[in-house]
């Protein structure tokens, strides 16, 4: 399973499934990271975490641990 965590800057991927449970997962989905959404990996923060992605036309930052819950192709 490939997750958003394993992607590189500039990659364009499509979300397959958001794993995990509870508030964090719901928040990720509420922010538009849902099945079928196209995601562009914009950059990694200067200290190596979190990451910045572009989804549904805006910039979103999330921690690498949470990015690991997002399965992509």
């Amino acid at each position, binding site marked *: 399973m490939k997750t958003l965590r394993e992607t590189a800057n500039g990659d364009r991927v499509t979300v397959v499934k958001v794993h995990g449970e509870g*508030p964090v997962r719901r928040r990720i989905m509420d*922010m538009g990271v849902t099945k079928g959404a196209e995601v562009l990996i914009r950059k990694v*923060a200067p200290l190596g975490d979190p990451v910045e992605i572009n989804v549904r036309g805006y*910039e979103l*930052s999330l*921690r690498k641990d949470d990015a690991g819950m997002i399965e992509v192709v």
Partner: protein
Amino acid sequence: MAITIALAGNPNSGKTTMFNELTGSSQHTGNWPGVTVEKKEGRLKGRREVILQDLPGIYSLSPYSPEEIVSRSYLVNDRPDAIINIVDASNIERNLYLTTQLLELGIPVVVALNMIDVVRKTGDEIDAKKLAGVLGCEVVETCALKGEGSVQAAERAIALAKNNLTNSAEAHTSSLSIRRTAFSSEVETARDSISGLTSALEKVKDKGEAYGRWLSIKLFERDAEAAKDAGITESAEGKRVLAAIENITASLEDALDDDSESIITDGRYNYIADVVRKTVKKKDAFALTLSDRIDRVVTNRILALPIFAGVMFLVYFIAVSTVGAWGTDWVNEVLFGSLVPDGVASGLESLGTADWLNGLILDGIVAGVGAVLGFIPQMLVLFVLLAFLEDCGYMARIAFILDRVFRRFGLSGKSFIPILVGTGCGVPGIMASRTIESDNDRRMTVMTTTFIPCGAKLPIIALIAGALFPGSMWVAPSAYFLGIFAILVSGIMLKKLKRFSGKATPFVMELPAYHLPTASGVLRTMLERGLAFIRRAGTIVLAATVLVWFLSSFDTSMHMVDTVDSMLAVIGDKIAVIFSPLGWGDWRAAVATITGLIAKENVVGTFGVLYGFAEVAEDGAEYWPQLVAAFTPLAAYAFLAFNLLCAPCFAAIGAIHREMMDVRWTLFAVGYQCGFAYVISLIIFQLGRLFGGGGFTAGSAVAIVFVLALIYMVGFKKPYAAPAAERLTAAPAADIA
């Protein structure tokens, strides 16, 4: 007839700007019951009968954050007559996600397509008329920053509200039929079955069809909060209904191989994607915007930290070193140092009032009011800078850049600013924590900010360093290291406690597009926060100052006396024993510590008075010999450590209370600070004595126990985890503890 209109929208959608424009100065700020979420209400300019209720900026109506819970419980239970939903047109897809949820409530909605000018500038096109048709609600194009369209949006909402109040039944059914398109047919079938099960509920009968539909979606999502609110979780009948719903939900989950929350969220976003396809003509979705180009530099791998350091230097320079300090010095030294006291003194003299009354007014009330107002200039300067950083979008970048470092200590990247400002003055530092969204992170910041030595603690450092450690260079830097150590250790320890365990706000944060804030918006935020400090902290500061004045001016038989013979001296004498394990069980030190609560620099002056000097230099050089005779260097350093870490001055305690908005949290914070200061001070003195050849005593044993306890708390204690059962039923709602 009074009409209530709610303003709802995502953070950064321009909601506050529109609210300000529509209400002007007729705003009332309070709190949503039970939570620390700000509640703003106002009346429409020129139409006093229309009440505007500003809801917190939210992305969804999920049951997980306090902002979302208060918003939806307001919308569902208090039912405003109409909603103006502010949608950032330049970010329409995600903004419409909240819209789909608002439309379900059965309350008339006007979508304000805000920042439409930004969309036009990029060359994108939104067909507002078509959007209105597809969504089944009114759509008005607005640009709140320039004041365009806001009034029309309000007019439309009023018209809808009036129309809805006169013939509600028809309006509902016609619009509901349109909204049914949101989900796939399997989901709608399941939802209909759930509706059938809940239609007999009291609340559904009472609130009508729209609520029933909304509730059925929430129950399908296994929304515990909505179930509780519907009164379905208590009775045996309710439990049977819930079990039946669970069956429906589970079987659809099996069929679709997905869980119900995803099914609903995906359904909404698929619906929106379809709406957007029909109504928006967009260029390349991933094209670099101006914001992206700014971010290429500002959050760049190499440049981000130097730029951050530069911005922080500017904030510090303006708020702490120059403009802010000039204002505060003027208020403290000129206005409340001579002008007001001299004026009041001569006024009282000409009236010939009694000594005690003069004392009360001058040393109690005037000093107390001065203590409150003295912080205002610096605070206002800081608030302008903060409001600017927040509004322009840089604050979110700070969190992005620093998150990795700060989250280890239970703090947010945004905690950096409170701590930085706290080196000047803890009061604006604590107030600066306002910008941190997560309750836990904010409380942690509020509790630990004053550990860093503020400007008023510098005279104490100068006193101890000058008298007991002449010529040494390490005392002052060690005070800052001690402060940083206290913040980090406290962060690690406290975040393992139960009271910091709940409701972790996920760090899934929007990086909003940069924009230039308006002067009026920035100034308004500044004034609101400044006034909030005066209102909420002012009374505490004033009362505490008067109390300490009273204790230090009277003896037990109510005669006015010098401090040496006062009640405070008696109290100091009694409590001094508490401090003897710290090496400074001298009553003068105890009294000085208490007067330090009014303002930390008082510690130096109080020693002076108690040693018989009416006036002393800022570092108390006059009585250094006496101090050397009374204290060993070790005891003096322990005294310094205690005074740096213990409860801050009353003004800062007032600010803590203002930010915690809860007496228990305030007491916990102050109690923790004093306890931590005591433990650290004791460890310093007792271990210092042990290793200095003082022999092993009971005190050394206690110190070793404290050290081991700290090591355990920092390194070994497991974070508190809610028991599994509690987690399932946990309503992340309004409980503050």
